[in-house]
């Protein structure tokens, strides 16, 4: 049993807003759902599967009711920012099994406008909460150890932000459109050592949605065909504190599973959407996915290697979380959306990868230095 080629992404929509004080969170979910359904050329009545995560107000049942859906398959897998990459894989499984035929996945929220609810805690709470793990310092801990073990430098991390900024200048919706230099990043204030302010993604309101469907239905619609050919998911945590190693992510497990299912290798990939909550997130994931050897990520990302038209691996051509947006502090769905744009040939002409027929969308969710999930999707132009 494989999901290879059994599900197509027929509709995508990214909310243009980056600041939405005049809208409700549920409303943003509805707006992105409407956008994706219209992009696919479908109607709401066609939707028979729905996927959402922790950002959906109240979870599945209030959302299904609010949106006025009538579904026969539902999934609210919650793994932070990579939830939607996992949803895409699960939607493909459900479609392959005949449990639904047209699935809707939504993400939306307003962290820029309001305060985000606290992260749900588990059995570790008494042993960790007091120490103040946040996204900044949890990723900072990874970067610090990566530098110690492999000699990775702040200059190398800065190249990731530089590449993202080169792409963001062409995105009219990007929050940060100015091209920056390595020096700009190094001169920005330290937030949590060794990460500078410009190593961190933006905080934005907004959202995005996907329509996932069967090959037959996708072929009956008008959009260029994009299909999922490989998917992987995994989790990683301190696991009792044994052999702690914060220099790799759960991508070391989700990546190979996805590549194996797809029957391709990292060398075949023309475009990469890589979750960029922080620059270190990108560097570690590129290593874990096999784009370079462990410890060589710093060298790999340097000198513009991630810039479209310049380097060998164009990444996050919308400007990504580092420059464009990071709706609900979750970057998973925008990673899929830009990969689909590239495969459709709908990316901005200045960043469109020529003959882009194979792409990866990958992300992590949670706190990289504490416990997190990862999910990898390999997408192909059909």
């Amino acid at each position: 049993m494989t999901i290879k080629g059994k599900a197509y992404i027929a509709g995508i929509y990214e909310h243009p807003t980056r600041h939405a004080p005049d809208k409700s969170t549920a409303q943003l979910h509805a707006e992105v759902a409407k956008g994706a359904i219209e992009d696919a050329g479908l109607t709401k009545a066609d939707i028979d599967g729905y996927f959402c995560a922790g950002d959906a107000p109240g979870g599945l049942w209030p959302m299904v009711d609010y949106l006025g859906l009538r579904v026969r398959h539902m999934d609210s897998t919650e793994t932070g920012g990579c939830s939607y990459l996992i949803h895409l894989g699960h939607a493909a499984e459900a479609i392959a099994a005949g449990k639904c035929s047209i699935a809707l996945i939504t993400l939306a929220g307003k962290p820029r406008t309001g305060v985000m609810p606290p992260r749900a805690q588990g059995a570790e709470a008494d042993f960790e909460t007091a120490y103040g793990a946040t996204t900044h310092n949890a990723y900072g801990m990874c970067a610090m150890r990566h530098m110690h073990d492999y000699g990775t430098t702040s200059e190398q991390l800065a190249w990731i932000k530089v590449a993202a900024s080169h792409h963001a200048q062409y995105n009219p919706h990007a929050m940060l459109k100015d091209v920056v230099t390595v020096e700009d990043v190094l001169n920005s204030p330290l937030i949590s050592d060794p990460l500078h302010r410009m190593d961190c993604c933006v905080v934005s309101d907004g959202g995005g949605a996907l329509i996932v469907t069967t090959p037959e239905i996708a072929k009956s619609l008008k959009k260029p065909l994009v299909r999922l050919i490989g998917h992987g998911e995994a989790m990683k945590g301190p696991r009792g504190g044994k052999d702690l190693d914060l220099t790799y992510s759960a991508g070391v497990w989700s990546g190979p599973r996805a590549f194996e299912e797809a029957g391709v290798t990292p060398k075949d990939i023309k475009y990469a959407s890589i979750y960029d909550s922080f620059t270190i997130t990108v560097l570690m994931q590129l290593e874990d996915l096999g784009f370079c050897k462990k410890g060589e990520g710093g060298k790999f990302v340097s000198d513009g290697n991630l810039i479209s038209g310049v380097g060998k691996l164009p990444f996050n051509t919308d400007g990504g979380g580092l420059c464009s947006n990071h709706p609900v502090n979750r970057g998973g769905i925008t990673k899929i959306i830009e990969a689909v744009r590239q495969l459709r040939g709908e990316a901005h002409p200045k960043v469109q990868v020529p003959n882009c027929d194979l792409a990866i969308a990958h992300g992590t969710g949670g706190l990289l230095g504490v416990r997190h999930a990862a999910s990898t999707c390999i997408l192909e132009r059909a």
Partner: protein
Amino acid sequence: MAEARKYPAPQGNPETAPFWEAARQGKFLIKRCTACGEPHYFPRAICPFCFSDQTVWEESSGEGEIYTFSLMRKSPTGPYAIGYVTLKEGPSVQTNFVDCELEKLRIGQKVKVVFKPTDGAPLPFFTPV
């Protein structure tokens, strides 16, 4: 001026109560599985490695070295350093580094446990030796 840091009192539960009782006496406990021999932290009733229920409490030396850390430059209660300590007994423990110059922390530095008060049981922290 940042507000003084006030640490939340552990909520406790039947599974972890002995840890907090020992903490009140200045003892830092870890759990060890008598089936596979592996120590672990934070403490569980069932071993996270071999899934045996034959786990026992063991007093740790409270000594170890810094595996990694990150210095949070700003927070409502001022700067703080979060990190992991790899204990002499093996397990790595999430913590904050206290009673020291945060700018001088280094990976590999020797540290030892110190307890800080809360409204309930005290919490373990680490400080350079």
